[in-house]
């Protein structure tokens, strides 16, 4: 089941299946080595639709809520 990043819970794992952003978002993610197929862990979300933090390998990145909604993840147990 694919869902967007904001719907994952803290500590859950997943694999990115789609980034529905424009070129800018794709590009920003790519410079950090995060792209389609990358496995990630959700580290935290902030109150009231604040930024979402994820970890991929040893890289951590905080992403604004709106952008995080456009990153689709396949949930992994």
């Amino acid at each position, binding site marked *: 089941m694919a869902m967007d990043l904001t719907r994952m819970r*803290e500590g859950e794992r997943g694999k990115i299946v789609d980034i529905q952003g424009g070129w800018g*978002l794709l*590009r*920003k993610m*790519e*410079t*950090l*080595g995060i*792209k389609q197929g990358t496995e990630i862990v959700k*580290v*935290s979300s*902030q*109150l*009231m*639709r*604040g*930024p979402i*933090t994820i970890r991929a*390998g*040893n*890289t*951590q*990145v*905080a*992403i*604004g*809520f*709106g*952008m995080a909604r456009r990153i689709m993840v396949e949930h992994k147990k």
Partner: protein
Amino acid sequence: MRKVLLMGSPNVGKSVVFSRLTGVNVISSNYPGTTVEFSKGYMRIGNEKVEVIDVPGTYSLEPTSKAEQIAVEILQDSIASQNGIVVNIVDGTNLERNLNLTLQLLKKNIPVIVDLNFWDETKHLGISIDIKELEKIFNVPVVPTSAVSGEGIKELVDRLAEAKAMTYDYPEEEKWHEIGKIIERVQKVTQRHHTLLERIADASIRPLTGIPIALGAVYITFRLIRFIGEGLVGYLFEPIFEKIWAPIIMKLSFILGSGGFIHDILIGRVSAGKIEFFESFGILTTGLYVPFAAVLPYVFAFYLVLSIFEDSGYLPRLGVLADKMMHQVGLHGLGIISMLLGLGCNVPGALATRVMETERERFISATLMAIAVPCIAQIAMIVGLVGKYGAKALMLVFGTLFLVWIVIGILMNRLLKGESPEIFVEIPPYRIPYFGALAKKLWMRVKGFLKEAIPFVLLGVFIVNILYSLKIIDFLSKLAGPVIKNLLGLPSGAVAALVVGFLRKDVAVGMLVPLGLTLKQLVIASVVLAMYFPCAATFAVLVKELGVRDMAKSAVIMIFSAIFVGGLLNLIL
């Protein structure tokens, strides 16, 4: 002179390598025509002296920001003049994504050596990298280092001469596939447990634990700055001025005949055979006492603490936690970092607005900072002046400024067209700061303060004396006095402070001392002085950053809000 360019992504420990390679003679300068800063130093290769450039961090050679563009330009210059070596600093714990830049550099016609940094951390993280294999693939030297402990730096220097230009060819659209293949050949990762630092790292970015940690950090910061600042004032600078400098000045005063024009400019007023360094207002008395004894200790303390926060990797986390709040004033979370810098000095704070994505954000952040974020020099003077009346009095001044910050921020966010972009920021792991790099940065900042402040302070004191003796202050006081008196409830003598405030805010606050103001007047004067206009140095930078038109808009907001807030305080206090 040959050049060594240190290139790498942000957060790869570039500046630590830089400070390991270079000696004390380090210059931080702006790239011509811009406000992007980079550091330059020197090192020796054999008997040859070469220049080392700490190139702004860049994720790739296709720039997306001003700083990245500068990085690419510095590289192109060096390729064109055929006199450069690139030390590509790579985060060994994030090899895969770092190789993107490495491959791009290997395509350029310039000698490259790869520095695989954080080597000690890769071991803790269960990552093993086959260096020999990596060297074989790239055909350039690959040196593992742990810059913080210094391990591997000597080998890096020794092997600089082996750096060579290579053409590692692969189709551009296949780059991640290519990188994937390399990673498979050279890297093995074994499972491992979370370290304590990682647990703290996770805790400090989750709201439930992160917000208390942030508040605690702010509290400790204030205590630490006060402790260090007061310690330096009480045990070092005040004794120096009172015990050593005062007798010398008294002798000089005697030699100069205890009065007259030259005497008054150099020494100022001497009352009852004693010098009040805050009040006498001579160049050699107040002119030196304000920057050195009253302000420098706090500047030092502030930048020490700020630099530790920067180098440990905490600030991006603070940005994430503050993101929601900052959006209320039209900025995203990282806007808080330029505000923090502004608390040190508005000049670097204004320069830091450069990293913001849109013009709207730059305008909001520069205006907010200039109005409601007093610099540490001004804060130190206000604390010295108003602090006598206790913490409540200080709360009145700084609480008012914080309220002003919020209200004007919300208003600008509502009234200005456009939206603020969302945050997107890498969160680096926590790292123990390297003392050498910290000391160098601190020294550069303190030096920057002295270079910026002392000429302006001395000039300020000089001009005040001239204006007084030409009766210009009297004239201005008569002119503006009624407004100041009726609206703000301040004596007409405060006009002089407002005039000097255009030059230097700390001196301006100092000029309130001899006026014998009441607490209410002190609070109003401090707030108005902070708000009404930026000091000359900040003004110059803001004009460059915002352009004349936006600066004029910003100035209108400053002047009117200062009069409004000052008048309001006069009514309600």
